[in-house]
C-alpha cells in the first residue's frame, strides 16, 4: 500500500495515548475520545491522520467521516469491534485485555486499569512519516497485544492488535464489494448517521466456512506428502485472499466475501489436487436488518461468524424440546396410578410427538425459506467426476481413472493424475521412511484439532460467565461472539502450536520427531509409556494458554494419539486422527483405547496406580480378558492390591476400560 493511502490499521493509535491537556479542554482528556480537540490542535496532511480523527459518528463525536473512505473505515471499525457497543455499560474500565480462555476475573481487580504508554507528540511524529501497517505493528506490537480494544469491563475481550488487523481486512472487503457511497451524505451529521444506519441494514456480506477434504488413502510414506500439499495450498489461499480469510485451522477456513465474489472461487485451487470441500454460506446484513422487531434470534440478523447458526439453533431447540418432553412425561406418569399408565402414556406421547413434529416443521420451513431466498447455502463441491470409470481406477483415491503406473518400489501401482502429482511433487518425510527399516519401532501419531463449532459455543459460555462475574444484566443476550474474539483466539492458538512444536522437539529430540504439520506429528517411541511424556507437556501448555477450557464440559481443542508398530498403515491411523470424538482420544492399535476429558487430565497424570508388578499382571490380564481385569479391580482382592485404581473408577469418574488402557500405557 502506498503511504499516501489511508492505512485503516492505524485508526485507533490514540487509544495508546496518555490523557493530555489539549487546547479547548479544561483538564487532561483522552485524545481518542476527543478527536476534534486533536484535529483542531494539529493538522497533519495525510489520509491516515484523517482516519485517526474521523472514524466515529456517535453522538459524542464532533468530527465524523467526511469521505467515502472514512465512511467505510467507520463501518469496518464497527464490524471488527469486540462487542456491539451499545450493550455493555461503560461505568467501569480496564485497559488490559481479558482473554476469555485464560484470564481470571480475580486478576482483573488487581491490575492497573490504565495502560496508555504513548504521548501525543510521539504519535504526531509517527503519523507524519506516512507509516504503513507493518511500520505500525513493528513499532507498537507489544503495546497493541496488551491493550484492550474496548476498555469497558465486559467488552475488554479483544486486543487492539487483533482489532486493528481486522479493521484493515473489513475495510478492504467493503472496498472490494464496490458499494457506492454518495458524496452528498457528508453535508451534515444527521444525513451521515441515517445513511450509515440504512447502509448497514441493507449492505450484506457472505460468511463462508470451507472444510477441505481428501479421498486419498495414503499407504506409503511418500503419499503423506498430501499434508505438505495441503499446507502449501492453505498458504496459497491465505496469501492470495489474505483480506478475506478471517479464521483458519489446518483444514478449515472462515471467509467473509463481498457479494460480487462467488463462493466457488476456491474450486480451481483445490481441484489441482483432486481435493473436495464442503461449504456453508450465509448472506448477512452488516447490522441487524430489523432492530425494532423481535427476530427469530437477536444474534441472527447481522454479520455473525457462524454461518450455520440457524441450523444449529434449530437442532438445539429440537433437542431441548425432546429433553423437556422426556422430563414432563416422567413427572406426569409418576402421578398416575400404575394400572392406568399404559393407556394414558400412549396418548400423552402422541400429543408430544405432534408438538415436536410441528416444531421441526417450523424450523425446516425457516431454513428452507432462507435457502429459497439464497441467504443460506451449503453443499459439497467436487472436481468433475465421471459417472463410470473403466478399470484401472486410481489405487490411492479411487475417484479417477488411473493414468500413470508407479513401479519404483517393486510393486506396480496405478495412479490418477492427482495422486501421481502429490506423490511426485511433495517433500519427503525422510525420518519416517528410515524408521520403517528399523526393528521393533513404535510410532505415535499425534494430531491436535480445533472444532470450530464447539469453539464458538465454548467462548460464548465463557463470555456469559465473565459477564455474570461483572453482574452485567442479561448476560446470555449480551454474550455475542464476533469475528474479533475468534481472531484473538486464533492469535493465541497459533502461539500455542508454536510452543508445542518447540517442546515436542525438546522432550523427544529432533531425530525422533517427524513434523507433518504444525498440529500433526509422528514421534518415534521405544514404548507406550512415552505417550505420558507428551500428555504432560500438552497439559502444561493447556494450562498456560487455555486453562479455562478445563472448566468447560467439553474442550474445543481435541487431541488424538494413535500408536502402533511403525509399519502399520497410516490410513488406519488417519481414521482416528481426523475424527476426534472426545477431548483426548488415545488409541493403541490392537491393544485398546481410552478417552479423557480435558478436565480429567490433571487427575489422570497424578493418578497413582500402585504396585508395578501387580499393574503389569493386570495389564496382561486385560489383554486376554477385559472382564477378568475388571473383576480383579472391583473385587475385595482388588481393593487391597489396587486401591488407587478403585479410587480412579469410583471417585474420579474414569471408565474402567479407559483405566485399563492407561495401565497398559504405563506398564509398557
Amino acid at each position, binding site marked *: 500500500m502506498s503511504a499516501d493511502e489511508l492505512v485503516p490499521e492505524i485508526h485507533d493509535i490514540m487509544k495508546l495515548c496518555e490523557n493530555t491537556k489539549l487546547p479547548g479542554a479544561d483538564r487532561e482528556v483522552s485524545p481518542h475520545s476527543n478527536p476534534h480537540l486533536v484535529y483542531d490542535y494539529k493538522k497533519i496532511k495525510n489520509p491516515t491522520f484523517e482516519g485517526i480523527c474521523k472514524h466515529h459518528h456517535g453522538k459524542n463525536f464532533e468530527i465524523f467521516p467526511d469521505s467515502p473512505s472514512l465512511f467505510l473505515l467507520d463501518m469496518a471499525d464497527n464490524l471488527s469491534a469486540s462487542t456491539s457497543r451499545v450493550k455493555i455499560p461503560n461505568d467501569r474500565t480496564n485497559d488490559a485485555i481479558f482473554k476469555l480462555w485464560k484470564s481470571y476475573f480475580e486478576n482483573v481487580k488487581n491490575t492497573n486499569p490504565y495502560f496508555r504508554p504513548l504521548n501525543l507528540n510521539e504519535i504526531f511524529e509517527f503519523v507524519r512519516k506516512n507509516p504503513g501497517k507493518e511500520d505500525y505493528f513493528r513499532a507498537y506490537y507489544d503495546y497493541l497485544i496488551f491493550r484492550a480494544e474496548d476498555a469497558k469491563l465486559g467488552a475488554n475481550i479483544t486486543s487492539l492488535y487483533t482489532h486493528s488487523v481486522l479493521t484493515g481486512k473489513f475495510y478492504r472487503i467493503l472496498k472490494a464489494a464496490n458499494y457506492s457511497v454518495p458524496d452528498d451524505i457528508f453535508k451534515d451529521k444527521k444525513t451521515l448517521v441515517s445513511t450509515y444506519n440504512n447502509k448497514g441494514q441493507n449492505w450484506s456480506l457472505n460468511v463462508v466456512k470451507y472444510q477441505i477434504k481428501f479421498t486419498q488413502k495414503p*499407504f506409503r510414506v511418500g503419499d503423506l506428502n498430501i499434508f505438505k500439499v495441503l499446507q502449501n495450498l492453505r498458504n496459497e489461499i491465505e496469501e492470495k485472499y489474505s483480506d478475506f480469510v478471517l479464521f483458519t485451522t489446518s483444514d478449515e477456513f472462515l471467509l467473509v466475501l463481498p457479494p460480487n465474489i462467488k463462493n466457488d472461487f476456491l474450486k480451481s485451487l483445490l481441484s489441482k489436487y483432486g481435493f473436495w470441500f464442503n461449504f456453508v454460506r450465509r448472506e448477512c446484513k452488516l447490522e441487524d436488518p430489523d432492530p425494532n422487531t423481535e427476530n427469530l434470534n437477536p444474534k441472527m440478523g447481522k454479520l455473525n461468524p457462524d454461518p450455520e447458526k440457524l441450523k444449529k439453533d434449530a437442532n438445539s431447540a429440537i433437542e431441548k424440546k425432546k429433553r423437556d418432553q422426556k422430563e414432563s412425561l416422567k413427572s406426569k406418569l409418576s402421578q398416575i396410578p400404575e394400572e392406568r399408565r399404559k393407556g394414558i402414556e400412549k396418548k400423552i406421547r402422541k400429543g408430544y410427538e405432534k408438538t415436536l413434529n410441528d416444531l421441526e416443521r417450523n424450523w425446516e420451513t425457516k431454513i428452507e425459506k432462507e435457502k429459497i431466498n439464497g441467504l443460506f447455502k451449503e453443499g459439497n463441491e467436487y472436481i468433475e467426476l465421471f459417472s*463410470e*470409470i*473403466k*478399470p484401472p481406477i486410481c489405487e490411492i483415491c479411487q*475417484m479417477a481413472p488411473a493414468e500413470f503406473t508407479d513401479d519404483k518400489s517393486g510393486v506396480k501401482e496405478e495412479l490418477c493424475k492427482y495422486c501421481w502429482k502429490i506423490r511426485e511433487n511433495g517433500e519427503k518425510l525422510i525420518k519416517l521412511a528410515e524408521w520403517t527399516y528399523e526393528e521393533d519401532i513404535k510410532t505415535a501419531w499425534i494430531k491436535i484439532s480445533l472444532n470450530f463449532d464447539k469453539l464458538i459455543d465454548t467462548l460464548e459460555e465463557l463470555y456469559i460467565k465473565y459477564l455474570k462475574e461483572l453482574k452485567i444484566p442479561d448476560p446470555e443476550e449480551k454474550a455475542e461472539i464476533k469475528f474479533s474474539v475468534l481472531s484473538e483466539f486464533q492469535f493465541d492458538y497459533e502461539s500455542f502450536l508454536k510452543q508445542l512444536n518447540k517442546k515436542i522437539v525438546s522432550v523427544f529430540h529432533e531425530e525422533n520427531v517427524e513434523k507433518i504439520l504444525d498440529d500433526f506429528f509422528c514421534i518415534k517411541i521405544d514404548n507406550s509409556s512415552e505417550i505420558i511424556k507428551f500428555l504432560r507437556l500438552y497439559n502444561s501448555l493447556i494450562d498456560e494458554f487455555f486453562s479455562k477450557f478445563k472448566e468447560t464440559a467439553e474442550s474445543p481443542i481435541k487431541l488424538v494419539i494413535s500408536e502402533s508398530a511403525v509399519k502399520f*498403515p497410516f490410513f488406519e491411523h488417519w481414521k482416528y486422527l481426523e475424527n476426534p470424538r472426545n477431548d483426548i482420544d488415545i488409541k493403541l492399535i490392537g491393544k485398546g483405547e481410552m478417552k479423557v476429558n480435558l478436565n480429567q487430565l490433571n487427575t489422570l497424570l497424578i493418578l497413582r496406580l500402585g504396585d508395578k508388578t501387580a499393574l503389569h499382571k493386570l495389564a496382561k490380564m486385560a489383554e486376554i480378558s477385559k472382564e477378568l481385569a475388571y473383576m480383579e479391580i472391583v473385587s475385595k482382592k482388588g481393593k487391597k492390591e489396587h486401591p488407587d485404581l478403585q479410587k480412579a473408577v469410583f471417585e474420579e469418574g474414569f471408565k474402567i476400560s479407559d483405566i485399563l488402557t492407561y495401565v497398559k500405557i504405563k506398564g509398557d
Partner: protein
Amino acid sequence: MPEYLEYSLKADALILGERIKGGIFRPSSKSLRWSTITMALRKWTGKRDLHAIGVLDSYESNYFVYSPTERAAKTSKIPLQVEVLNNVEGNVYIVKNSKLELPYEFKIFLGALISKGFGKCDLKFEREIKNPERKKGTLCTRIPLKYKHLFSIEEVKPIYGYLFEPNPNTMTGTYIKSLFEGSEVEGPVFLLGDNNGR
C-alpha cells in the same frame, strides 16, 4: 414407490474388504454396500434384476493374521493382517420384485476369505415395508447413483465414491459413481444413521 423386504442379518465373522491394494493390512468396510450384498444375493438366487443394500447395526472389530500360500511353489507369502468384523448384526433391504421369491430364512456368504470360514450370514425375514417414512438425514451405507431411485434416495449434501459393478458373465466390470456413508440425503429412515453406521 418401491416396496422392500427387510431381513435381519447375523454373522459371526465378516471381512468386507475395502478396495485397497498394497500394504500388509487389509481394513474392512464398516458398511454393507450395495455391491457386496446385491452380488451375493444375485449369486444365491440366480436373478440379475435384484437390488439390495445393507445396514450394520453392531459389530466388534478385530484383527486376523493370514498368510496366503503359493500352492504351486508350496511357499507362503508375507503375512497379511486382516480386519474382521465379529458378532455382526444388521439388516438387509431388498427391493421387492414380483419375480423374486425368497425363503423366510436362509444363509448366504459375503465378503472375503470365505474358503477360510469367514462370511457366513444368517438372513431372517422381518417385515415387508410399504411407503416407508422418509426424512432428511445421514446415509449409513453405499448406493450407486444410478440405482438411488430404487431406494427413494435424494441427495442433499452428497459424499461420492465409486462401487464396482461386474459385467454379467465376464470377469470385468466398471466402477460406478455412488453415494457413500456420511452423505446428507432425503430417504427412508431405515437407511439413515450417523457417519459410521447406526
